[in-house]
């Protein structure tokens, strides 16, 4: 809980500083945009945190965003398949790929890093191959469908709640319920905490883990859909690049331990928002070259991790004394 408070304080601090330096930060346009992006990456973050809580990792998420994001406009516009079929088909595909990751990790005992690293290469390669690296997009059609990604519920003249935010709230409530209120969630955390103990308590470790990978991939698919509906176009060679790292960063900042067994949905949401606010701040603040975005995000994560470690040691020492 302290971890979450700490990262929330960092989020507030970054927001206040940015607001002081750049008047553009607190404009309703910017806030609405920030909420939309935080929501999209929040969904990805929640997805990957399920896997991270088991002690695993999913690196394939950016490429899966690319696969779903690029195939959606292509199948609907260029191939001409009705949208409902395309959406449900691609989400099913995501779920299936997640299950496949889970099977490879549990039944063949492959390392999650390797399985999903292969996924990272394969899904992007397949997408680029199918589309021959051509940019795809909705053009002017599909306005109704696109509103799922870029739509808003007007609140004032200038400000509206982005639709993805509402989807995120539903996803977060569902994920929180699953983790804290159900058997499956408790077993998921137990597996990450001590897999041997969980196994000896009769928990079906393999099934729970497969579920985690499946949920991660499904949420990734949903996020991929929403992102392409928001942007309208997608270029296979860079759509979703590095998104897995933004998602993992969100989860880690939000208090998930890469060793597994720890993490909360609310923490991941704050982590995802922090990453997006940082990206936003870099764009808005004149002194920071936009191209150095990764350096800033990397430094912030590093500082957070070091602070956490130092605090942990200090509290450990107090316990001994």
């Amino acid at each position, binding site marked *: 809980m302290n971890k979450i408070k700490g990262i929330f304080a960092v989020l507030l601090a970054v927001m206040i500083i940015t607001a002081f330096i750049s008047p553009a930060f607190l404009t309703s346009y910017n806030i609405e945009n920030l909420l939309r992006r935080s929501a999209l990456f929040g969904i990805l973050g929640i997805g990957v945190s399920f896997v991270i809580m088991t002690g695993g990792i999913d690196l394939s998420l950016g490429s899966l965003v690319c696969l779903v994001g690029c195939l959606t406009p292509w199948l609907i516009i260029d191939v001409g398949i009705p949208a409902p079929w395309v959406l449900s088909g691609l989400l099913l595909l995501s779920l299936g790929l997640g299950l496949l990751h889970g099977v490879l990790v549990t039944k063949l005992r492959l390392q999650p890093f390797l399985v999903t690293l292969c996924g990272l290469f394969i899904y992007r390669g397949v997408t680029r191959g199918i589309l021959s690296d051509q940019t795809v997009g909705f053009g002017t059609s599909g306005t109704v469908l696109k509103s799922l990604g870029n739509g808003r519920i007007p609140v004032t003249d200038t400000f509206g709640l982005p639709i993805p935010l509402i989807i995120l709230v539903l996803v977060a409530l569902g994920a929180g319920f699953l983790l804290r*209120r159900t058997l499956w969630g408790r077993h998921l955390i*137990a597996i*990450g*905490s001590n897999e*041997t103990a969980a196994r*000896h*308590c009769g*928990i079906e470790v393999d099934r729970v883990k497969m579920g985690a990978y499946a949920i991660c991939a499904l949420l990734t698919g949903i996020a991929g859909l929403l992102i392409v509906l928001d942007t309208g176009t997608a270029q296979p060679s860079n759509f979703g690049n590095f998104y897995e790292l933004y998602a993992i960063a969100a989860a880690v900042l939000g208090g998930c331990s890469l060793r597994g*067994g720890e993490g909360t949905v609310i923490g991941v949401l704050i982590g995802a928002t922090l990453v997006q606010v940082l990206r936003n701040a870099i764009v808005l603040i004149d002194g920071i070259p936009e191209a150095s975005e990764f350096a800033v995000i990397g430094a912030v994560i590093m500082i957070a991790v070091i602070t956490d470690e130092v605090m942990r040691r200090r509290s450990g020492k107090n316990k001994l004394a």
Partner: protein
Amino acid sequence: MNLRPPLLEVSSITKTFGGVTALSEVSFAIEPGEIVAIIGENGAGKSTLAKVMSGVHSPDSGFVTVAGSRCEFRNSAEAAEYGISRIPQELELCDSMTVEENLLLGREPLKSMGRLDFPECLKMTRSALEMVDLKIDPHQLVGDLGHGQRQLIAIARALHTSARMLILDEPTATLSPLETQVLLHRLIEMKKSGSAIVMITHRLAEVEEIADRVIVLRDGENVGSLEGKEIQRDAMIRCMVGRDLSPIEPEVSEFGDPRLIVRELMTQDHPEAVSLQVRSGERVAIAGLVGSGRSELLEAIFGLRPRSGHVSVDQCDLSRAGVKESVRAGLALIPEERSSQGLALQRSVSENASLPGLFREAGRFGTLDRHAGAAVAQKIVKELDVRPPRTDIPASDLSGGNQQKIVIGKWLDLNPAVVLLDEPTRGVDVGAREEIHKRIRDLSFSGKSVLFASSEMEEVLSLSHRIIVLSEGKMMGTLVSAETTEEEIMALATGGEIHE
């Protein structure tokens, strides 16, 4: 009289691992309301027996009978269904979860659709905690609890999962004297309420205190069974080692000048200054309970931990030195955790054996010959009789005892002036243990200084000339090994309070 079959009976159990016999034709039975202690030296087969009874290992021959019906457990979960629960030394708890979550793991009460029934959870937790009489907040993280409480949590979980028989593997090894007393008291109460308890331990005082019956194992065989008044320290030792312990022959030792001098050493774990000397040809033991700072002291002397004070080896001042300087000045540390601190398990015996001395063979820019270290490895394998005598196989293919020989060998090859050893024979079999002890004695005969930490009293008493006793990082006193007793050491180790 009692015509009911015993609660659990093991009959002529034999178990071998890769040609080595761990258990040979072991039989015994246990009734409800009984505490049976299994004792024996390291490598006698105690833990293997516990694992066979609880379904972790299946026996090569022989069988287990529960309440008269023959069982073939395929895993520990199946044994648990018959009410047999083993609590291993390494407790299987989820540290990042709460007491309640741990107690109910795998049998959480549910409402519809896989939802947890929280009020029922709390009720079950309370009743489980009551079984071990532990007053503790169910929402506290298990990782924040002390060893004793964690042990009780594991026991509460087993009992509440309707275990009729508990098998405890070294339950008191990591407990303080007070925690030990609490645990033993609980075990006696559980016995009164009809549970059967099997306890593996090497602390004979505990056995005298609570066991109704003692099964003695030696080299995998059941060499004796003691009951009631027969359960006495001397009888147990006689049975364990197969002979009366001959008093250790006083070696005629001439000590030379001090080779290791430590003055006013203080660290985070040692709040009061520690000063000691080890002379040429002398072997000094560091004794103390778990958490007394034994290993930490060795590591601080070696330069692995931040410290203040003065350390010197053969007049070479190492007060500000790190590990590299310490090694070159003639200091060697042979660590406690063989697999994590002593060996790169996946790498070959040859690579492992040559690692500390490799700097001598490196070229000017740190380049290494492809065959660097092979000769060293060959020498170690031959001198210490490592079996199998191969240097090209991964270290993980060797048994625990042989791994330890490699760890010791690779340091001795450096010809250090002062050898620090942390738990030199933990988890090795009797044969390897004797060989390692002989090797350590040889070291001192050749004029080196030996400083070792050990949790095994027999080892502390038999291997050392002097004993330094630590308690909570403070030096409680120095005893001369030939003139002291285990009781005296324990009295100092527990902070000076007089122990019955």
